[in-house]
């Protein structure tokens, strides 16, 4: 495969799995052309009678939808690590003798490890989506037949909308559905709260299958998925393992070192003036982010301020902020814990909001650019402020991009990270894999100092002389190396095992097979 250097100086292939690919051109440089992709026209002629779409089994549904070699099957990840359905699709495909499928999940989890056997026996050609844990390792070792394509949540819906990926069959697990195929995330034994990751799939797929363990009377209201787009409805005993779908309770970190970073982050938000009455904020569900949310909540209460809205993944800490009056609305693509699920059901200000509306870069604006404060993580950040979230310093692909790239478009992007994990520096001279360009990353907050991107003179001015431990990113790197020693780089073979897409569909970097 011919490799060329993209605008970020990274070597990327001119094609991915036989399809032409556009190299990254720079932030905001690639203009798409043409029209959106559209699925084929359907007709009521094919859906006669009482419109009861319930079929006997998932196999029957897949057969009716014409599952065959080379098709692309999409799924969402709202059942997270408790998912009991997605692996079943490929069990059935293997039973049917179908080969070379492309799996397009919105994310995969450790519970999806069993699909490795279908990657090995040729049932699945490749996965295009986030790769966690065992699947990532499998790909890094060069054992997957096709090339993995990693996209952000927004990049995935952009690719679907633009027709870069054509979904033949979308299998959508839904905690509640009616016989017509209207579906939602609340109610039933497998409630996920919202189904924010399934929207592009059902709008653009040729065929749509709803799988539920909670068939209710029509109308299933408020419907997040409209039955007019649905081919079949399958009723199963159990969609997932409830305690693995949503945690009973998400926990803030107990690590004193992470709490220190969280405290410093909250202090930075206060001193810089980024936190103010009416601000908008997004923080993830990781232990450190939750701790930041708790510290910020305290500050808001003390000052009598209110955030205008927050964007989920929602947790009980965000819900508490809203219920106690320090946040106006929660716009939510996924609910992480039971309190968040309850809140979606009860509180009209807790609004399901799909990633399609929040993150899609090929649309007329999106939510991320409206966020004042964005808290994100990274496995590595380099002295140019470039970030990596997919590989570790040993070169292994171990995480998906999630919404990370999309969120970089917020007004102020802040990465609270430890300076090193065990002996492994997080601040390095060059990231192993480039996922986000440094021009979009504004602040790095570590336990040993805060580095502000020199491009953000305004932020530097806002906190100078206010007692914060300000350092340069170069100094952070040197501190890490002084403590840990200078790390050697991972060694790779030439073979590219994964392409990393940017939010506009261009290729920002490649992941190579690790040398064994």
């Amino acid at each position, binding site marked *: 495969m011919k490799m060329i250097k993209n605008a970020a100086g990274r070597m990327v292939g001119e094609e991915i799995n036989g399809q032409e690919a556009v190299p990254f051109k720079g932030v905001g440089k690639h203009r798409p052309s043409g029209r959106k992709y559209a699925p084929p026209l359907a007709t009521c002629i094919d859906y006669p009678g009482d419109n009861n779409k319930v079929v006997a089994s998932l196999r029957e549904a897949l057969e009716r939808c014409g599952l065959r070699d080379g098709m692309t099957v999409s799924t969402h990840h709202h059942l997270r690590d408790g998912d009991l359905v997605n692996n079943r699709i490929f069990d059935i495909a293997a039973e049917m003798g179908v080969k070379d499928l492309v799996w397009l999940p919105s994310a995969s989890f450790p519970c999806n490890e069993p699909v490795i056997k279908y990657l090995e026996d040729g049932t699945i050609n490749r996965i295009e989506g986030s790769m966690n844990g065992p699947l990532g390792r499998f790909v890094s070792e060069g054992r997957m037949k096709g090339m993995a394509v990693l996209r952000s949540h927004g990049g995935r819906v952009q690719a679907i909308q633009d027709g870069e990926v054509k979904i033949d069959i979308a299998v959508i697990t839904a905690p509640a559905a009616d016989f017509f195929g209207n579906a939602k995330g609340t109610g039933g034994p497998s409630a996920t709260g919202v189904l924010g990751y399934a929207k592009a799939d059902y709008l653009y797929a040729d065929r749509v299958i709803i799988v539920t363990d909670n068939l209710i009377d029509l109308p299933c209201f408020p419907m997040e998925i409209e039955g007019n787009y649905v081919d079949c409805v399958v009723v199963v005993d159990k969609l997932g393992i409830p305690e693995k779908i949503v945690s009973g309770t998400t926990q803030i970190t107990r690590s*004193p*070192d992470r*709490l*220190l970073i969280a405290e410093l982050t909250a202090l930075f938000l206060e001193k810089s003036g980024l936190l103010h009455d009416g601000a908008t904020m997004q923080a993830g569900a990781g232990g450190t982010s939750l701790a930041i949310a708790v510290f910020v909540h305290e500050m808001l209460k003390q000052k009598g301020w209110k955030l205008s809205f927050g964007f989920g993944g929602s947790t009980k800490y965000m819900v508490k902020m809203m219920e106690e009056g320090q946040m106006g609305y929660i716009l939510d693509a996924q609910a992480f814990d039971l309190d968040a699920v309850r809140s979606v059901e009860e509180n009209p200000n807790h609004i399901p909001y799909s990633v399609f509306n929040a993150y899609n870069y090929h649309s007329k604006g999106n939510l991320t650019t409206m966020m004042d404060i964005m808290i994100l993580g990274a496995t590595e950040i380099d002295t140019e402020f470039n970030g990596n979230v997919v590989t570790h*310093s*040993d*070169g292994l692909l171990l995480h998906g991009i999630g919404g990370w790239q999309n969120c970089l478009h917020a007004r102020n992007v802040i990465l609270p990270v430890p300076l090193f*994990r*065990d*002996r*492994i520096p997080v601040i390095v001279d060059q990231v192993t894999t480039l996922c986000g360009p440094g021009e979009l990353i504004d602040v790095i907050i570590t*336990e*040993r100092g805060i580095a502000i991107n020199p491009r953000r003179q305004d932020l530097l001015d806002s906190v100078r002389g206010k007692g914060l431990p300000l350092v340069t990113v170069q100094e952070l790197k040197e501190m890490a190396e002084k*403590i*840990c*020693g200078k*790390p*050697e*780089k*991972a*060694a790779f073979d030439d073979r590219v095992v994964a392409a990393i897409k940017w939010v506009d569909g261009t290729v920002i970097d490649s992941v190579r097979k690790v040398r064994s």
Partner: protein
Amino acid sequence: MEMKQAVTGNTGPKVRSDIEVTLELRASGGVELEIRSKVKTMYGNAIEKQCRDLLEYFGIANARLKVDDSGALPFVIAARVEAAVRALGLRSSAFLPEMIEENGYTSEKGRFRFSRLYLPGNNPGMFLNAGLHSPDGVILDLEDSVAPERKDEARILVRNALRAVNFYGAERMIRINQGERGLEDLEYLIPHNVHLVLIPKCEGRETVMKIDERINKIREREEIGRPVFLMPIIESATGVERAFEIATASPSVVALAIGLEDYTADLGVQRTKEGLESLYARNRLVVAAKATGIQPIDSVFSDVADMEGLLDNVLRSKAMGFEGMGCIHPRQIPVIRKGFSPEPEETEKAKKIVLAFREAQKRGLGVVALGSKMIDPPVVARAEKTIALAVRLGLLPDGWEEQEPKE
């Protein structure tokens, strides 16, 4: 028979920043290295080179060395290998990591000791960020937090930590073992800029004097000019009854601490949050310390999840006259610091009293009055102390008198 294989350090799924070293001496065949490491890609070569250099330093030409590494830093690797060499009974000089320049600072007798953070001496992962939490002191503990069979390797690890780990300005304290082993601990550690030694289960002046004497011998030998302070911990009924003689045993004693777990066990009673059972002991210790002009320091509060309980405890402690408390979790540090700091109202009141006193002095008046209230000299003295504390904590600026509105 001589032991031929030694195992030191730690490994396992929950272990971080440590390494397990297995060393087996051989008669011939050179050095055989087996390295397993979580960070092999980045540091495999560095670990191998360090291991070879260490064996050469210790004069070992034929051996099998197996390491199981969970991201240990070089000072930890050096300590674990040295401990294995010593466990095999080989006499050799210590391998000292470089003393980092940040670690040259000194302490002083009267510095604050509000919070002192205990760090188990054989857990290197807890050392690295301890100073970042801004405790007044860090205690590298060789006593109760280290299992008896790990005592030897812990003191080598602590010695290396005193040289290689930046404690960011915290007073560098060690808690030694009781008896003869404690005196040996001093030999290992005093040369590496120890500021203060905690003496566990202290029951009389002889113990203090013996330790002081040994320290002074080491200081003379190593030509150490700076002082090494002592903080005896009183943990028994006998210790309590002898608090004053312990406090006055040496001018190096700068503080007297109480250990309530052992004390209540000695009394055969339960330790409660209210602490009525130890009221006498704590009172007596405070009085002994104040009579000697040193700091009385309270016991640790062991429920790390109960921050409100901790704050109550600190406020009670402060009310009794204590000037500090031990901590076993970094999150306790800010609570303790806040508790021992003067409240804003307390500072305000003290300011008024001190200003009134100075005004009276200027006018040559024998009696100080604030409004219609007469103020006794001890009240003035206490206010002066509060002001001094507030200034040192940065709660009041130097020269605060100038900034006060003139009446």
